[in-house]
């Protein structure tokens, strides 16, 4: 399969993840969407690395995965803290910065 196929696949996953971020009510659900988006990016990186025979892309993917892990843990910690203080984990209830 050519590079194009992988890129299209990655774009599809990214869009699905974007959709999830924009629509899910639960904060954790939003984080799941973010996960999908990051995954799509990783696919992109690896595909380019493979088709251009450049290992840098793969190295970058490893880094991206590690950083994603860190980000997810922090994000979930925030969600837990939010739930503790405000008793809600729903994104549409979190509107205290409303103009």
């Amino acid at each position, binding site marked *: *399969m*050519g*590079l*194009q*196929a992988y*890129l*299209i*696949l990655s774009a*599809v*996953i*990214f*869009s*699905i993840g*974007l*959709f*999830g971020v*924009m*629509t899910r*009510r*639960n904060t*954790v*659900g939003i984080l*799941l*969407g973010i*996960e*999908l988006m990051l*995954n799509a990016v*990783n*696919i992109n990186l*690896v*595909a380019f*690395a*493979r*088709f*251009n*025979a450049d*290992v*840098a892309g*793969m*190295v970058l993917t*490893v880094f991206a*995965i*590690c*950083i994603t*892990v*860190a*980000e*997810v*843990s*922090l994000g*979930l*910690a*925030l*969600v*837990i*803290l939010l*739930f*503790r203080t405000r008793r809600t*984990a729903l994104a*549409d209830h979190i509107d205290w910065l409303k103009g």
Partner: protein
Amino acid sequence: MSLDVLAFWAFAVVLVGAALAVVLSKNLFHSVLWLALALTGTAGIFLMLDAEFIAGVQVLLYAGGVVTVVVFAIVVTERLVGTKLSHTSRNVFRGALVATAFLLLVFRWITLTPLPLEKVAVTGDLTKAIGASVLTRYILPFELLAVILLVALLGASYFARPED
């Protein structure tokens, strides 16, 4: 239909299906499980790209670690279980519209760009190459990564500390 193409399509279908299920599921816990499947599918795609090491990392860290953490978070916070889609998702039309528009534009961009069709021949072990590269050329980001992980660890434990 060569094995390559078949395998690719199989993984792709699984991936996309699982992704859709993640965002459209009415049960959050189910979403997490579907995510685990999606991540595994991604690992399969990585295998198709001869990136065994990455696939392994993916399964270990993502499907193993992240999903576990998310499950714990769900357990600690509220669990939203709904009967209709509107219980778990809002503004679906708006989201679908934006996502579709985005997809179409990227798609157009991709198809308009000349891209290689054949994989370049690879000599030597990719995993070895990654390792060598990380420890020579990318040593600095590697160390910084360690710092980031430490910082994230500290941050997360501070945020989630017991109430006092």
